[in-house]
């Protein structure tokens, strides 16, 4: 494999392979930024991978009072799933169990899609007949009486079919400390990119997986080619000096957003340099036949 070296960091001539997904966005507001964030974090918990969690979800950004529909502090949340039906189910369950109970919360559409998903239109039944429908111009809201006043929820939110899931960067370093520093820098840079999330804890994955397993029941298993402790035992992808590997998985509302996030991540890693951070960046793919979106690292180098 041809290798490109930028500022001492080796960048493999390979690509990240990503898949089309269905996605939606919400704006969650509350009386204070702390409670808006709390509702958003609760709602996007246990949403790291569609395989085990039904959806991938995360916080896109925090919003100032001026940027929200009701003039209160808010948070924009993104949700990704493999089908419209699953996305609808996850949206309903997560807003109903995590946002509705969160004190002082309200929930609004965060995206105008060509199609829509039910938001308040499903949750209104919690009102047991006391829910109130209000249409203000083109906007439709439900007011649902709750114990601290009313839960205001927009009737629908948008759905996009152009979303992309599975953009990724694999970060290799000499020590766990330096690899972590590089991954943290990349995750922080990606968090600033609009319309994307990195759904894993803190945006970083340490348990990258490969498809299949020696065990029949497991659809995926540890990515042994990148496990430093197995370097001598398996057909490894690691260099002699690699002591630790971390991955960042990226989901975006558009393919361009995913590319922008990967570009920002690579730039942050390169800026940190090989001494304090990573020595090498690569990406995960399945040979290019499974996913329609390919992000070549050489095109994303700063």
């Amino acid at each position: 494999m041809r290798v490109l070296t930028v500022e001492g960091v080796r960048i493999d001539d390979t690509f990240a392979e990503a898949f089309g997904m269905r996605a939606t966005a919400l704006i969650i507001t509350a009386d204070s930024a702390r409670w808006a964030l709390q509702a958003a974090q609760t709602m996007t918990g246990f949403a790291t991978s569609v395989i085990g969690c039904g959806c991938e979800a995360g916080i896109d950004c925090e919003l100032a009072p001026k940027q929200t529909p009701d003039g209160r502090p808010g948070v924009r949340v993104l949700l990704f799933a493999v089908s419209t039906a699953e996305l609808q189910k996850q949206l309903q369950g997560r807003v109903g169990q995590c946002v509705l109970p969160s004190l002082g919360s309200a929930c609004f559409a965060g995206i105008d899609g060509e199609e829509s998903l039910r938001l308040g239109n499903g949750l209104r039944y919690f009102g047991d007949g006391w829910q109130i429908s209000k249409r203000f111009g083109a906007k439709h809201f439900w007011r649902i009486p709750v114990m601290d006043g009313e839960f205001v929820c927009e009737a629908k939110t948008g759905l996009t079919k152009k979303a992309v899931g599975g953009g990724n960067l694999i970060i290799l370093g000499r020590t766990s400390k330096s690899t972590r520093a590089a991954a943290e820098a990349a995750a922080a840079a990606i968090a600033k990119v609009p319309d994307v999330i990195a759904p894993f804890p803190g945006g970083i994955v340490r348990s990258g997986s490969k498809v299949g397993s020696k065990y029949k029941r497991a659809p995926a298993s540890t990515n042994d080619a990148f496990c430093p402790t197995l370097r001598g035992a398996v057909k490894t992808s690691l260099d002699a000096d690699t002591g630790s590997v971390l991955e960042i998985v990226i989901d975006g509302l558009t393919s361009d957003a995913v590319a922008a996030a990967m570009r920002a991540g690579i730039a942050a890693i390169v800026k940190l340099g090989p001494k304090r951070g990573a020595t090498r960046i690569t990406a995960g793919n399945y040979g290019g036949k499974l996913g329609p979106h390919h992000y070549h690292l050489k095109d994303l180098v700063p």
Partner: protein
Amino acid sequence: MKPLTFTLRQRPEQRLDLSPLVPHLLAGKTAKQIEHIELQTTRVRADVGEIFRVRMGDAEHIRIEGATDRFDRVGEGMTTGEIVVEGDVGVRVGRLMRAGRLTVRGNAGPWAASGMKGGVIEIFGSANDRLGGPLAGEMAGMRGGIVVVRGHAGERAGDRMRRGTIIIEGEAGAYAGSRMIAGTLIVGRKAGPLPGFLMTRGTIVLGSGCSAISPTFMDCGQHELLGNRLLAGFIEPFSKKAASLLQRPLQRLAGDMAVLGKGEIFIGNRN
């Protein structure tokens, strides 16, 4: 582009039906064709050329100058464009309007905005009885859009309203929001007796209360609700006065318990 202007020659001898003078019906017509449109409501013929001096212009923007309360059905069934009326109008201004903008720089007669479905009506003076209300035999009144009355409104404003927003910056007469099905009615100042009479659903906001409230409305306490804040944001471009009314705690009354009882009246205290 210049507006298509109709200037009254002299006060008409009879009430006139101005419903043909809306943008979608005048589009593409020549001056001659427009002047031959009949407006009479009696057996005596009265066409546009006889009543008005017509200055041709863009039919999307219509101006009616020198209007009087004998002009009925102005802007009826309007679907696009803009009509500006200088002066008063008679009955049913903007009835069944679907879209566009209708401005009356004067007073409006009864049944203004009756059964309106969309668009914006602004009345600088006052509106007479049954603002937005249905005609006899109709099941619902206003069904969408926004009506702003800068002055006062007569009795039964918002009668049988189903959707949309009515803002009355001044006072409202008796039975404001009677038989409301849904929608929003805001009265900036005081309302007459028995607002929300037999309302099933919907929201009425009274800036400074009313002369008498029905005993079938139940006090639910003072609240500052997010829903009202969203409403304020929505109506602010149309009426700053009404928007400021909603930015404070309001007394919520639930009713009318004589019927379904899922409506609400918010009362502000400006005194």
